[in-house]
């Protein structure tokens, strides 16, 4: 068995029929089994697109190109459709940014939860339900049996996000891709979700690719952090390195731009001006 669960080399995502520079350009990184990797970067730097690209879920109108895109040893670009379906359906779980709208409003929680395992692992209805209940328990949802019969709108945002996570976990994936799973939530709920992710990572060894704006948050959770800027990776560093002081000026600026509880109130925050980082190309026309 390979140590690397996800290998991305020279990933480029481009918009069709537009002259704009591709929103994601030449991204390389790897995620090892059991590792928690964070991606941070300003809004629009391509974090979401990268994660969707990896999961082969790019929205219509965008195209993907990469030298290597390997998941669990399988080639995600050239591989056969059938094989990929099963692989991605069971081994990769997605937790999206907006818990409010990421669950089908017209379908009961239970049905949404079991459909993937029923499809890919051929579980019986009852077995799948049992698994769903266990999975909901794992994410500390009370009265899990009852929840299966509820609709998403009957749950709070935090619960919905936990349902999303529980859904992803049911098939015991080797990689969880979580795109800003807590942006819309309270800090307390955020803390719970983070705890859950770590917990799972611990228990079943799933690797986590965690995307967030919040560099402080990532610094608390991740083993490694990838910093993106304008569709490129500017730095890929371990958390200790980050804490010790990153090399890239953008990462440094990013850390300073966010106030934390200890920020000096008498000083103005540092901001990142567009012109500050001279990447090879200018940002957007």
């Amino acid at each position, binding site marked *: 068995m390979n140590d690397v669960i996800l290998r991305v080399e020279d990933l480029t995502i481009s918009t069709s029929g537009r002259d704009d520079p591709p929103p994601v350009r030449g991204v390389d990184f790897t995620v090892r089994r059991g590792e928690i990797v964070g991606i941070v970067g300003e809004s*629009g730097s391509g974090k979401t697109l990268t994660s969707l690209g990896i999961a082969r879920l790019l929205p219509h109108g965008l195209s993907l190109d990469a030298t290597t895109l390997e998941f669990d040893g399988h080639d995600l670009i050239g591989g056969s459709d059938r094989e990929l379906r099963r692989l991605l359906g069971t081994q990769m779980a997605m937790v999206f940014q907006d818990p409010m709208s990421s669950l089908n409003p017209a379908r009961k929680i239970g049905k949404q939860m079991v459909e993937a395992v029923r499809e890919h692992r051929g579980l019986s209805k009852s077995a799948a339900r049992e698994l769903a209940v266990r999975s909901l328990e794992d994410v500390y949802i009370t009265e899990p049996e009852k929840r299966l019969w509820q609709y998403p709108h009957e749950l709070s945002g935090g619960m919905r996000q936990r349902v999303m996570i529980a859904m992803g976990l049911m098939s015991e994936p080797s990689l969880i891709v979580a795109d800003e799973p807590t942006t819309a939530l309270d800090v307390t709920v955020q803390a719970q979700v983070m705890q859950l992710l770590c917990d799972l990572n611990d228990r079943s060894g799933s690797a986590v690719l965690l995307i967030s704006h919040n560099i402080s948050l990532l610094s608390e959770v991740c083993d490694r952090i990838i910093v993106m800027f304008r569709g490129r990776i500017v730095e890929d560093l371990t958390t200790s390195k980050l804490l010790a002081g990153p090399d890239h000026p953008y990462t440094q600026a990013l850390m300073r731009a966010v106030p934390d509880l200890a920020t000096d109130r008498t000083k103005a925050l540092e901001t990142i001006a567009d012109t500050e980082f001279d990447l090879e190309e200018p940002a957007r026309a």
Partner: protein
Amino acid sequence: MTDVHPDHDGTDVRGDQRRRGTTRQMVRAFLSSPTGILSGLVLAALAVLVVMGPNGFGSAAVVSDLGRASEGPSEDFVAGTDALGRDILTRTLAATRTSILYATLAVLIAMVAGALIGGLLAAAGPRVRRIGGGVIDTMMGFGDILLAVVVIAIVGVGSQGAILAIAVAFTPNFARFTYSLVDSVMVRDYMAAAKVIGVGRSGISRRYVGRNVADSMAIVTFTAIAEGIMAMSALSFLGLGVQSPTFDWGQMLTDGVRNFYLNPYAALVPAALILVTGLAVGLFGDALARAVNPVLWSERPSLFAGRLGGRRPLVGKDVMGPGAAVETEGNRP
């Protein structure tokens, strides 16, 4: 102010320049759609016919020649003649004025009445809204034709009756549309913001409700004209439409349909004009919708409002919103 660099390029913030820019952008947006141009040309041609009217064709459209009555297509009469020996093609073209004007008139009446009712309802209390909404829903449930027939039962047959009937029949639709449109505007944050700033009632209704509602209303009114022509022709078919000497496509089509087995062209020619008008109005409306809504001028990429954001239906809450815009400082134009 360390990091802000306003580009002092001397741009003024005055009105006329602003307006010129707006118009230019609208025109550009409109011209960027081939269907818009095509339908515009068709509509221009129809407008010429409207201006010409029945008299624009000399006597050909109105004077009968019983010696050549009810003929089939020939070299003289491309689509044949009617029972009084009038050339069907000419007559159909001549009927453009009445058909379009009457439908337009009916739709305009409906628009004004509907906008008033809908606007007032949207501003009214919850009880009135509920009851008013129920009545409008039910009226809509009757459908255009049935409502029109019932109105004609009251006001009597004839051109005026038909116009009024169509106007009444369309009013609930407009009322409903205005209602949901105004309603969707009312609950928006910018309305609350305007109130907080202290914008007065008239400012709110003109600059906020008015501007956000007007173009959708205009476009819907525009497209409704095609529906109006159809409805008018249906009334003619039922014998409830315009009466001689006035003639419109509906009357010609009805007559043609009755004569279908002897001279199908008598039906197909007016049908084609109705069809072309309907299509042109629809396509033009679409193009116009894109042109007048600044949000759609440039379709900007964003995850959920991407290319498809521009093609939302012109109905309900999504009229104004660009969807979940991925806004970034880095996206600065």
